């Protein structure tokens, strides 16, 4: 009787071993599930950027020029629409574009302290195609204002490449910055002599540290602060996924490029192809990628 019992049952140690093995298997599986979710979000972000690239090329086919980084019509300190608005009809947002009517009503006539409820609702509309699914952003940007603090405007994540650093100039007024997008740039692709696959057009900016961007355009046309022209553009001279506040330069946050994808950012090159750029990419490579006609050869980082 006793012998039979001993043969049938199992000991406490065996039970613990089984629990430990199950625990190990779960511990191995859980991070994989999280990474699969992030991989899916990155693919979705990659799709958003691809659509922006196709829209840019359709715009180019229609008007024989890329959209300008932002519209500059003179007048110091005025805000105006950026490249995201110019390509709205090409990402199937024709109705929204018609309501916004940027051809007849400039942004500085909508973003005023006497803005009507309709104007405010338009400028606070979030466009899903301009939002990275990985980013933890609120609908309205409360942390960095848009030129002046009249009201909070909609958040988006995609920013256009103005160039590298201050040479040849900053993105203020209609100064050419060596990249592809600045005030009244309207570049034809033939001017991208480095080759469209070797020049960056669009990248992304995340919210938690850099306060993302806005699809509206520039908050001021005469300043390269993070509230002004760099609200919708970026300069590649700023480091990827870099905590400027902790490094001792909080003035520089929100001017560069960043994402919540682990290890780097997504970029769109001017040939409308999408790549993942590692954050450890050499600065000489980033510089060559950001200029449209510097003539430098570089080893592809992707």
């Amino acid at each position, binding site marked *: 009787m006793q012998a039979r019992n001993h043969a049938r049952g199992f*000991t406490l*140690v*065996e039970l*613990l*071993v089984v629990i*430990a*093995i199950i*625990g*190990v298997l779960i*511990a*191995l599986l859980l991070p994989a599930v999280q990474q699969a979710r992030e991989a899916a979000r990155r693919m979705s972000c990659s799709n958003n950027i691809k659509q922006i690239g196709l829209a840019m090329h359709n715009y180019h086919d229609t008007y024989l020029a890329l959209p300008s980084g932002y519209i500059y019509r003179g007048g110091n300190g005025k805000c105006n629409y950026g490249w995201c608005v110019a390509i709205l009809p090409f990402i199937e947002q024709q109705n929204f574009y018609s309501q916004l009517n940027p051809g007849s009503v400039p942004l500085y006539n909508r973003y005023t302290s006497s803005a009507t409820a309709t104007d405010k609702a338009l400028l606070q509309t979030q466009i899903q195609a301009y939002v990275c699914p990985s980013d933890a952003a609120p609908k309205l940007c409360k942390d960095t204002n848009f030129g002046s603090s009249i009201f909070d405007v909609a958040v988006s994540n995609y920013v256009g490449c103005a160039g590298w650093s*201050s040479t040849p100039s*900053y993105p203020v007024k209609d100064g050419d910055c060596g990249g592809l997008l600045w005030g009244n740039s309207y570049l034809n692709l033939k001017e991208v002599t480095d080759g469209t696959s070797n020049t960056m057009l669009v990248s992304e900016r995340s919210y938690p*540290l850099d306060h993302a961007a806005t699809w509206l355009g520039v908050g001021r046309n005469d*300043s*390269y*602060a993070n509230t002004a022209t760099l609200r919708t553009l970026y300069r590649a001279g700023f*480091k*990827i*996924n*870099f*905590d400027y506040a*902790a*490094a*001792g*330069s909080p*003035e*520089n946050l929100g001017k560069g490029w960043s994402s919540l994808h682990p*290890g780097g950012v997504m970029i769109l090159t001017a040939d409308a192809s999408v790549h993942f750029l*590692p*954050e*450890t*990419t*050499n*600065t*000489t490579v980033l510089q060559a990628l950001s200029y449209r006609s510097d003539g430098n050869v570089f080893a592809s*980082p992707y």
Partner: protein
Amino acid sequence: MRPRLQVALSFLSLACLALFTGCNGDSLASVSGVVTLDGHPVRGLEVNFEPVDAAPDRTTGTGYTQADGSYSLHYPGYKKGTPPGDYIVRISGGESLDDGTRVRVPAKYNAKSELTETVVPGKNKFDFDLTSK
């Protein structure tokens, strides 16, 4: 019973091993120090540690000086510090102000820098005394 217990214990220790491997993060060395220009601390200078070899997994670590001249390096990926290795140090007037005023630092400290440092694992302290000639 005794060999069974041993088997069970070895299983358990294996499980613990499996749990704790893969938890070692990439180790960055902390780098800090003080920069003075003609003997005075200057705020807003950009200190760049550029890798000597162009390895694809290493890039430039950057810090900005505070009012007391102190800086600490940070690294892309929202990290503090920089990977150990050999670096060319480039110190320039960082941009932060909208009117474009920058502190002038001679080219021998940035574009034509001859400053080199070796970062070792752990804590590093590098002070730089610059002269504007």
